[in-house]
């Protein structure tokens, strides 16, 4: 029972991550890969505040979200100025660079990781309590994002993704919309980070690396980009299925890469056969708008 509940806590946290990442790439159409670094910023900020100050956990988590939001605005504003594609490389560089900093500072725990994060809830009811908190946060995230993308704002986001030039020529500031979406997505990832830090009580740079980026990307693509429930399904699958495989009792040196192979393989298959993901519209032709491109050559003469 304890085991299922702890897996569920992780699923809840990753639902928050996947849903917020989906907002950025599925709805906003922004190609980025550095979602884990905002997860990390939230986690480390919350953890360090908890360790060095007496601030209550809720404030630490909120501070983590604030740091993640500010960092994301700076990153987006500077790289989108150049072009949309640049955000991709810039975010990758930012992620790996910041991880390198974390790895080299004793203050953030160095390569060994940050361990003495104070316990907030103790006792037998710890896991159920965390499950309730993280579960509630996951539900709130999914509902909030669904609310944002409904109605006129969602319509604007879709239009921006469909034809950004025409959208801009109607008087819309596409850049500020992108920065806003990015900030909201990364801020939410920061909250997930804070929750993660307090639950897991151990942070190390490996947890926020490119492999994590690929994992979250897998959740969103498999589940269905640009849908409400896609990230939920994706997160649940990507966390639950490997757990199921552990029961096969394979040695870890085989199991870990095996899980990786299964999931990356699945993403590739889906990308070609069913780009809309599990939740998205069916059929080969159905491609989420975020994955397509519109040919503008011929606007001349």
């Amino acid at each position, binding site marked *: 029972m304890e085991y299922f509940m702890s897996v569920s806590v992780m699923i809840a946290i990753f639902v928050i991550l996947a849903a917020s990442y989906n907002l950025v790439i599925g709805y906003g159409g922004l190609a980025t890969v550095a979602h884990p670094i905002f997860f990390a910023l939230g986690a480390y900020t919350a953890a360090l505040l908890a360790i060095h100050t007496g601030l209550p956990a809720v404030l630490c988590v909120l501070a983590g979200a604030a740091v993640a939001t500010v960092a994301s605005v700076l990153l987006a504003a500077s790289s989108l100025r150049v072009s949309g594609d640049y955000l991709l490389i810039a975010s990758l560089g930012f992620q790996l660079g910041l991880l390198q900093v974390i790895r080299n500072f004793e203050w953030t725990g160095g390569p060994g990781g940050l361990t003495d994060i104070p316990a907030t809830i103790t006792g037998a009811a710890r896991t159920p309590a965390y499950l309730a908190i993280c579960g509630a946060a996951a539900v709130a995230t999914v509902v909030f994002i669904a609310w944002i993308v409904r109605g*006129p704002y969602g*319509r604007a986001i879709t239009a921006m993704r469909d034809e950004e030039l*025409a959208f801009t020529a*109607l*008087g819309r500031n*596409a850049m500020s919309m992108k920065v806003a979406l990015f900030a909201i997505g990364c801020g939410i990832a920061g909250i997930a980070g804070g929750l993660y830090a307090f639950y897991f009580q151990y942070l190390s740079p490996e947890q926020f690396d490119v492999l994590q980026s690929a994992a979250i990307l897998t959740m969103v693509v498999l589940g269905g980009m640009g849908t409400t429930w896609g990230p939920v399904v994706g997160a649940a699958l990507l966390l639950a299925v490997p757990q199921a495989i552990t029961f096969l009792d394979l040695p870890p040196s085989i199991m870990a890469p095996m899980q990786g192979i299964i999931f990356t393989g699945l993403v590739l298959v889906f990308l070609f056969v069913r780009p809309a993901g599990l939740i998205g519209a069916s059929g080969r032709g159905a491609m989420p708008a975020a994955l397509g491109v*519109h040919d503008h050559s011929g*606007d001349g003469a």
Partner: protein
Amino acid sequence: MTEILRLTGVCKAFGGIVVADNVTLSIDAGEIVGLIGPNGAGKTSLFNLISGVVKPDAGRIVLHGEPIDRMPLYRRARAGIARTWQNMLLFTSMSVMENLLIAPRDYPGESVLRLAFGRGDIRRSEAEMRARGLAILARMDLTQAADSLVTDLPFGHQKLVGLARTLMNDGALLLLDEPMAGVEGAAYETMQRVVREEAASGRAVCVVEHNVSFIKDLCTRAVFMAQGRILQTGSVHELLASKVLTELYFGV
């Protein structure tokens, strides 16, 4: 006649190619100016310069008396420049009505703050916009298509939707980039009628077109461009009577 747009000495070159060579032009409210000339003359480039897709190397662009040449694209649209595109650039995931609802220049539902605190506002605007959109569609005999996906419509109707979207944008200056290309029959008549109505109601209209009869029927004035330069302006009749220009145009 109020002057809406004035270009003075606008120049633009890409690498070695001059697309605008000392262009001086003004468009008043109520005019329908036809921009004609051979391919590669710089007509669409001029639209790109006016609307803000590219910035001029030299010269001034003034809208309603305010210089706009340093303004980014989206601000020029807000200032009152509305344009159509050769490739239409309709929002393909959405229906006709949704395409129109995006078009008004200032829309409360699109600010996250307003989303949180102004729900009543948003509901009201949504209803107003919808009514406006339906009215425009009615003028184009497209009411029944309001909820169809734009990609489901025949080509001519798609072009009308492009025009409708631009009208919803409600800019004082209307730039139409080859609106007639590939359009015939009823859609053609409709487009002519609507453009005439818009000019009559006080908009300044500038049209890039290759369709000579459209220019003859509709335009109050014509401007002939070649290699980035304005060679001649005047009434359509005068321009079309000029041997020199017809040679340039049809490349005899």
